[in-house]
């Protein structure tokens, strides 16, 4: 998730502390707390599946790229860094498949890209 979850949670913690103090204009307090609640709702939905999603996605992209290997370190930050590396490589491979007219590989990449959006989908999103 971008921005990263730990930095968002730290920011929300500070925001809640500031809003617990007197003197915050009511409309600004309402806006801050309402938005914080919406962010926490998104987090509650995404939390349990994050590591699974990244492992699954990394495995699928390695297969498309012809890479071997697996995710041994399951820290979210490590999985995300590997996901970034693989998705950057996938962009290059997709562009090359287009240049070479390799429609079979293009179709496989498109199918995986559609699958990534299913994995990352949140229930309140408009699409």
């Amino acid at each position: 998730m971008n921005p990263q979850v730990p930095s968002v949670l730290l920011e929300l913690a500070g925001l809640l502390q500031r809003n617990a103090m007197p003197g915050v204009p009511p409309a600004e307090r309402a806006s801050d707390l309402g938005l914080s609640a919406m962010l926490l709702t998104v987090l509650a939905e995404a939390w349990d599946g994050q590591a699974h999603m990244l492992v699954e996605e990394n495995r699928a992209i390695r297969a498309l790229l012809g890479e071997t290997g697996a995710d041994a370190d399951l820290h979210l930050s490590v999985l995300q860094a590997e996901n970034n590396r693989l998705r950057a490589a996938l962009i290059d491979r997709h562009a090359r498949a287009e240049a070479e007219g390799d429609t079979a590989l293009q179709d496989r990449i498109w199918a995986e890209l559609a699958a990534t959006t299913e994995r990352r989908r949140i229930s309140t999103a408009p699409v």
Partner: protein
Amino acid sequence: MAHPLEPRVAAYLAGRMPGAADLSVDSLERISGGASRETYRFRLSWTEGGAARVRRMILRRDPPASLIDTERRVEFEAYRAFHGTAVPVPEMLHLEEGDEALGHPFFIAEEIAGFQASPQMLFAAASDAVLGRLAERKWTILGEIAKADHTPLVDVVPTPPLDGCWTRELDHWEALIDKDAAEPVPITRAAIRWLRANPPPPAQRLSIVHGDYRTGNFLYDAEGEIHGVLDWEMAHLGDPLEDLGWSLQPVWTFGRPGRAGGLCSRDQAVAIWERASGLKADPAALHWWILFNCVKGQGIWIGSAAAFNRGGNRAPIMIYPAWWLINAQDRAMLQVMGRL
């Protein structure tokens, strides 16, 4: 308790209204939302020529860092270009481009009070008949924007050639994505490659482009009338199909599939716009502009995250568009490209 901005706004306006006496500002409060500007409403009271006056006003101030970087003057002049025309907009009153008065540049405008902008409130309460009337007004007004004289903005924004409108916009948003993307965006990159390989025809005319014309950026009433078109901060000159494409891009269905802007079918919206503008929406060109606007949307959501990540603006409003819309925008791109 009075908002700390009240005396500063009052001092500024006292300097701008030499005929006013006993000037005071009260009821100043921030309006929720708005990731590109801080928006406040307030009441100004003063005496002039022996008569007591009261006027409700809006203050739009730059935040420390925004999800989009735009010029205050462009937004101000875009509003002024349409004031008193068939495109309803609030009257602009004062523009301040320095930081001295309120810490950041800002403008002050009249408040068009008593109406709603929230899409969620609209879809929760309005009947299909009201949504239909709103759709008629929404795309009629967009047609009026498309056919309006563009010359009021030529001194404040670049004037692209008719066959260069698309490259100017695509170059701009791709550069922002290059700068701001914290993670690789393979769907967006594929969309950009397709857009460059399949350029649209030259614009039919050069128009003022609102830049963010969607449900949520106008004030409506319960009968389906529109009383004010807001949020002109991304206004520029370009292809009128750009605005139509933004209004039709899938994230603005608000989860109401098949309804442009959550209001009516896409064919109905296009027909209303064509009738009002006198222009044609060539299907292939419109497809290009809808996909482009998906890329532009992604640029905005990624930029919002970047403003947070860099520490320039740590407000929660900078996080929510990124978490809520980056994946949805990817899905919208897949949908437009026939891959979902």
